[in-house]
């Protein structure tokens, strides 16, 4: 231990710490300045940025003693005399804060820029901001609001970008910052890793690191003897059910018999420090007998394939999903033109910037035993102590976590409490269990709080990804531009465990032919088990994949027919009265045509051309449209229960709190629920608190998935508030508590016709792309978008979802591929997975279309996934319009694209990261 002296946020600091520490560790652990977050520990993501002597540095790889004698500034020091710094205020005003995990990094990097420019007496430009924030990543905002906020903070008159929406009601329709944004910009917002409990231990997991093997033996004796180790648990130590899974319970909590993918957990360790826990992992001896690896979804279904789950009667076929409509042969016979092509989409990673973290607290935990005090914020007041096993976690489905942990602990669900902390991004990647159950098991085994924090590298290895797919699609149309038939076959790589594969790939299947009126359709989808990292939910939920195929075929058909691609889509667009491919009659709320018209109008300014040259670069527009269901649908019960408490405050008037166990991952749910409740109560949304995700305090809002929260929980909150308003009318001045269990309208399973979903949202986007003819590099210069969301409840956070979703889908098109080689990830570190940075984020023009859904809260329907669906094909359509080259695999590989441009080839088959050509697949065949 040595003395480290710094001036932190203006205060002299003198601490005695190991010389081996990094600055981020000293700030977070010794000084408890947890506003500085750590996202990767690789100097990649930039969220840990602090200022050392006014210079932005990444504190995760900055030795603490390098700061000896220096000034260090963190987010906590920005507020002066209780007044927000101009950057904090601007981030708030512009809605540049979503999940909040990267916010401190963005703000501190920007502060370095603003101070430097001010000292040089120079104005801050957008180019300056893009240069300074190049390595300050954000996965939520899409950066447009960030740029605008920084410009405003530099003293320029830049207003928040807000598309035109319907005239607001009293509260609904008002643009407001997310209620938790203030805590996030000030650095006081607490994510799971920001909690520390007296006596807390640190846990790590022994991973298989091989894709497929039988376990011969596990020997943890040496690890158990290591000094500082409190517990080592294996499959033998599980009191209850040794499996979890949201749809199928097929995922071992701790593997005992075999391992099915590299991230499988074999043992867990709790120790005095993470270092000791890590050392203990190396002492655990596991003997394996390796098995052949099932590496892709097509070979998985061959007769001679080994079975990932031997006990399954269907072998590696997880599910065969079918859509049937009309007479396919007649449809193709009527077609004048047919496009038949096979596409491939990559496995992709959510890369939420907060790695998974869970803290387990044993039942009856008393901090006084460890010389500490009760953390009143963590326990939510004195009434809710840790009298039962408690799990702190940023989770998308708190009640499912509770029930699954209870099953493994062998106790009733009511004996487990899940407290949902803030979540640093989810995007579907925090629906499955990761460390929740492990932390709870270790807490009960040791009688101490246990923190299970994943490193970025472990996060990449373990949690489910977006499904890789191979899609053959044949689309037919008549000379007058009417679609007559679509046939498609999809293979989806579900990885080692079921996760949400069945649901995700059902969505890929039902949406495969696009938002069009098509009389004859046959789609087959084969969801498979492999030994790859499991695939599950990811914003877009399968539709992102099949939309790429559908919208590529649409442009090719339009060209063959000599029709304008926009006009071709108009002729086939779903409208009220039309029937979807699953047999659902669209009775209302189909804003697709208006979306197309708005985008088309903006795109076609004066002198419109699809493509033109600018020096060595060729520019072109491309367009794509799509749709996405709201809610679980398919006959699944879809409900949420909200509790509303309302009371009269002598100073502030009527106040209320909405309580519901739904997840806020940065999308803005608290603001939406507050607005819905406030509207019914006739008060300002600022007077409505929202408490989310505590299974002992908040009723179940169901999973935060399927773009369902605004619709289902929004309705529940609205109706509970309406009940409260009515009670208050009867007994003014009293304190009332109401609960409302809201059931979404019933839906029908796929294949039975009728309403498969409660409603759909629609989108059209145009991308202006630039292709450098010297290098094949592709840059998106501009996006024009229109989204039919039914009703904009909060236009500010809505626009944030749109911009962030679009940029995420730009990543899908151009930068992202989680590469697996025979079940082993090449993408083992964040440095090997690039999401769009601020330099990739184009200006976005956004239109909100509001075709109200009568069953939605104030007409609103789901939209969280909608923006992340069509951008990729809009980009590849633009690339085709620029170069005449059709891209069949994502993400676009500049090397292959340049080669095609130079050789006059009309297609690119290899995406970046692909090693093999796209396999040939037969329609309808399962192998």
């Amino acid at each position: 231990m040595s003395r480290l002296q710094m001036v932190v946020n203006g205060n002299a600091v003198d601490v005695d710490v190991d010389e081996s520490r990094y600055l981020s560790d000293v700030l977070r652990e010794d000084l408890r300045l947890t506003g500085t977050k750590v996202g990767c520990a690789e100097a990649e993501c930039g969220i840990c940025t602090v200022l050392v002597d006014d210079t932005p540095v990444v504190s995760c790889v900055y030795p603490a003693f390098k700061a000896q004698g220096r000034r260090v500034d963190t987010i906590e020091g920005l507020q002066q005399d209780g007044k927000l710094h101009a950057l904090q205020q601007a981030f708030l005003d512009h809605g540049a804060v979503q999940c909040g995990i990267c916010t401190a990094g963005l703000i501190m990097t920007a502060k370095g820029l603003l101070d430097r420019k001010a000292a040089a007496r120079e104005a801050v430009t957008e180019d300056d901001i893009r240069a300074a924030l190049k390595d300050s990543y954000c996965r939520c905002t899409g950066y447009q609001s960030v740029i605008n906020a920084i410009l405003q903070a530099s003293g320029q008159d830049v207003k928040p970008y807000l598309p035109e929406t319907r005239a607001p009601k009293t509260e609904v329709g008002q643009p407001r910052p997310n209620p938790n944004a203030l805590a996030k910009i000030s650095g006081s917002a607490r994510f799971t890793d920001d909690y520390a409990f007296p006596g807390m231990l640190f846990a790590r997991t022994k991973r298989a690191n091989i894709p497929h093997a039988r376990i011969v033996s596990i020997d943890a004796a040496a690890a158990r003897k290591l000094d500082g180790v409190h517990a080592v648990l294996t499959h033998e130590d599980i009191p209850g059910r040794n499996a979890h899974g949201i749809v199928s319970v097929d995922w071992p909590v701790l593997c005992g018999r075999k391992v099915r993918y590299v991230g499988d957990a074999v043992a867990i360790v709790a120790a005095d420090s993470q270092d000791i826990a890590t050392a203990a992992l190396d002492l655990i001896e596991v003997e394996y007998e390796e098995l052949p690896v099932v590496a892709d979804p097509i070979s998985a279904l061959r007769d001679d394939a080994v079975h990932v789950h031997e006990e399954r009667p269907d072998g590696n076929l997880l599910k065969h999903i079918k859509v049937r409509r009309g007479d396919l042969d007649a449809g193709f016979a009527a077609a004048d033109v047919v496009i038949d092509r096979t596409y491939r989409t990559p496995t992709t990673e959510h890369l939420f910037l907060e790695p998974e973290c869970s803290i387990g607290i044993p039942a009856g935990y008393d901090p006084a035993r460890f010389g500490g005090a009760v953390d009143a914020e963590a326990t939510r007041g004195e009434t809710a102590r840790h009298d039962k096993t408690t799990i702190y976690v940023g989770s998308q489905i708190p009640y499912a976590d509770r029930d699954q942990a209870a099953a493994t602990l062998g106790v009733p669900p009511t004996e487990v409490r899940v407290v949902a902390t803030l979540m640093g991004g989810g995007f579907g990647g925090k629906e499955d269990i990761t460390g929740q159950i492990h932390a709870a098991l270790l807490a009960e085994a040791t009688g101490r709080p246990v923190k299970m924090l994943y490193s970025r590298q472990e996060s990449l290895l373990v949690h489910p990804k977006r499904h890789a797919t191979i899609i053959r699609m044949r689309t037919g149309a008549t000379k007058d531009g009417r679609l007559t038939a679509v046939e498609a076959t999809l293979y989806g790589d579900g990885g080692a465990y079921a996760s949400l594969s069945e649901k995700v790939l059902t969505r890929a299947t039902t949406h495969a032919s696009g938002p069009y009126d098509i009389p004859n359709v046959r789609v087959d989808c084969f969801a498979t088990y492999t030994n790859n990292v499991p695939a599950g939910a990811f914003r877009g939920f399968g539709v992102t994949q099949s939309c790429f195929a559908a919208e590529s075929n649409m442009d090719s058909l339009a060209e063959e027919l000599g029709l304008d691609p926009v006009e071709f889509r108009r002729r086939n667009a779903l409208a009220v009265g039309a029937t979807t491919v699953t047999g659902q009659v669209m009775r209302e709320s189909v804003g697709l045509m208006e979306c197309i018209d708005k985008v088309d109008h903006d795109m076609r300014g004066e002198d419109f051309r699809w493509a033109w040259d600018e020096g060595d670069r060729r520019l072109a527009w491309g367009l794509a449209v799509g749709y996405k269901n709201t809610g679980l649908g398919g006959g699944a019960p879809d409900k949420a229960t909200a509790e509303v408490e309302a009371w009269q405050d002598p100073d502030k008037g009527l106040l209320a709190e909405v309580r519901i166990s739904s997840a806020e991952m940065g999308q803005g749910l608290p603001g939406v629920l507050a607005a819905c409740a406030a509207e019914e109560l006739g008060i300002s949304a600022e007077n409505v608190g929202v408490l989310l995700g505590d299974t002992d305090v908040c009723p179940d809002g169901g999973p935060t998935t399927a773009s369902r929260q605004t619709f289902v929980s929004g309705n529940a909150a609205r109706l509970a508030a309406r009940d409260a308003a009515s009670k208050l009318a009867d007994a003014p001045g009293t304190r009332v508590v109401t609960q409302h269990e809201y059931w979404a309208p019933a839906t029908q399973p796929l294949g039975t016709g009728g309403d498969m979903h409660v409603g759909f949202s629609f989108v059209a986007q145009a991308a202006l792309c630039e292709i450098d003819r010297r290098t094949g590099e592709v840059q998106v210069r501009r996006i024009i978008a229109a989204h039919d969301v039914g009703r904009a409840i909060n236009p500010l956070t809505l626009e944030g979802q749109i911009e962030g979703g679009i940029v995420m889908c730009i990543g899908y098109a151009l930068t992202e591929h989680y590469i697996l080689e025979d079940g082993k990830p090449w993408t083992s570190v964040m440095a090997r997975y690039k999401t769009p940075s601020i330099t990739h984020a184009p200006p976005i023009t956004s239109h909100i279309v509001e075709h109200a859904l009568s069953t939605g809260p104030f007409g609103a329907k789901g939209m969280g996934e909608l923006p992340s669906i069509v951008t990729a094909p809009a980009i590849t359509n633009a690339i085709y319009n620029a170069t005449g080259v059709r891209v069949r695999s994502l993400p676009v590989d500049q090397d292959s694209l340049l080669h095609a441009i130079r050789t006059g080839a009309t297609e690119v088959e290899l995406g970046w990261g692909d090693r093999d050509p796209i396999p040939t697949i037969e329609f309808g065949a399962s192998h």
Partner: protein
Amino acid sequence: MSTAWNRYYAPDTVTAALDILQRYDGRARVIGGGTDLLVETRRGLRRPIEAIVDATRISGLDSITEEGDYIIIGCGVTHTTIVSDPRIVRYGQCLSESCGVIGGPQVRNTGTLAGNVAHALPAGDGTIGLMALGGDVEVTGRDGARWMPAKDTFKGPGRSVIDRHHEILTRLRFKRQSDNEGSAFHRVMRPQGLCLPIISMATRLRMNGNTIVAAGISMGPVGPVPWFAEPAAEALVGQPASTETFNEATRIALEHVSLRTSKYRATEEYRESMIRTWLPNILANAVQRAGVPT
């Protein structure tokens, strides 16, 4: 994970730094910003080190100075300082450009050119820029300091002739460009995967009228170490600045390089194509910057 090293030294003299190296006898490592080493250490890719010797606080070696014809850069100088220093921009533009694309802004704020050169990666951008300028490095050991051309310091990927257990790269220098000289740098990247160059290249040209009278070209990765492309540079000397001349030098450069296909980064063909496109481009750019109308 914080057991990567035990002691952290930030000596303020070269002698003190060398003493520490001596004392630890191979178990200490010198860092500038440490941005390469510490990332690898943190990922567990390196064996733990006993001691770190931070070379950025050595007095007198944290600034850019001028001595005679030379611009001298101390080992504590960060990429950010180099990029924004008007003397580097004016007298060694390709170095400023190359340091400006290393890593991201935060990494450039701590990473040093000395670290970039000492790390000896096949395509260190700052290294490529310094080499094209004909730059030298000063290596100091207990027996004193010696200057040597930067291009002669590489033994293999990540291996430098500098004895890292007993020596420190203390300073870097290059001769100021005169008015009839120009330099330029270009790098081709891809937006996916590792942030490593597909190809980086730099040049410095001296003109007499329209005739090239002296030339330096550097590039990487075209082999295990950054390449000082002497055959291509020699082909330029005495020739008029013209497309033909540039293409001929490019042809010769391509004859001498052994390009590789590196997985998920670039094919050999793509690399060749990028050299064919961009080497003539930076040569023309350097000629223009030397004040020759094009």
